[in-house]
């Protein structure tokens, strides 16, 4: 089954890196949408269903925390697993994002297998409980 994802990061280089890792990871990646902040992500999600959202935290206009908060409060978008990909390794931040509804958290730098593992875990959680 093809996996449709949305990558949210203000760095085009990082979006490109994540996309490449997903494509090389062995996952069958279908549509791979990109947004540079939370606002753009929400606009894309109005018209496009994805199987997972991978988001950075520190972004202009709308950061990853607010994106997660809005998705969690939305009747439909809350069903999409969100994986946070961030340089912030602090325990407080990780716990906060998980409490807000993130299904997983990957710290940069990350090995390709780590991203794949966390993404599969996130998808497994939603498949097992929804």
């Amino acid at each position, binding site marked *: 089954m093809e996996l449709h994802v949305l990558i949210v990061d*203000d*760095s*085009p*280089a*990082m979006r*490109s*890196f994540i996309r*490449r890792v997903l494509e090389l990871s062995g996952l069958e990646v279908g549509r791979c949408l990109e947004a540079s902040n939370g606002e753009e992500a929400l606009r894309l999600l109005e018209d496009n269903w994805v199987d997972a959202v991978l988001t950075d935290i*520190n972004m*202009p206009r709308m950061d990853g925390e607010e994106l997660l908060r809005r998705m969690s409060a939305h009747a439909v978008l809350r069903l999409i697993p969100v994986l946070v990909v961030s*340089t*912030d*390794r*602090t*325990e*407080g*931040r990780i716990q906060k994002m998980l409490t807000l509804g993130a299904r997983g958290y990957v*710290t*940069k*730098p*990350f*090995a390709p297998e780590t991203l794949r593992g966390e993404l599969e875990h996130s998808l497994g959680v939603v498949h097992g409980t929804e």
Partner: protein
Amino acid sequence: MEPNEIQAAMAVAVEEVLETMCFASVLASAEGAAPPEADDGSPAITTALHFEGSPSGEFRLGVPVKLARVVGAGFLGREETDVSDSQAEEVVCELANMICGTVLSRLESKATFQITHPEVTQFEPGAGFDGDSTCRWFDLGDGILTVSLGLQQAV
């Protein structure tokens, strides 16, 4: 926070980020700005970001353009000749973000930091910091990368 702790954190962070994200290895590394014989006058991409927390300060990364294309190619999965100037800058900024985040988490794993977006700027590594600063250079074969960390307050 002792300078040798910062040096050790810098060494581990740079190697981890370069090996994991750019598939590049450090051949040699030492304290201080790049050795004078390594300065061939070639242009470099220099980026800086600020962090606020305990402690607060500034992080800087300098990468010669040629080396930026090499690590950029590894990061983006392209040939060096296909890496544009702007892409090389984006990769250097992203490296600065990751290296700084890794250094800070190693130095203060329980603390919370707010890190600004890295910006390309002009500076001499190690110069112009308000408080204490620590520099380290890394030889990757294709050029020498320098990192500097300036702290505004001690923990």
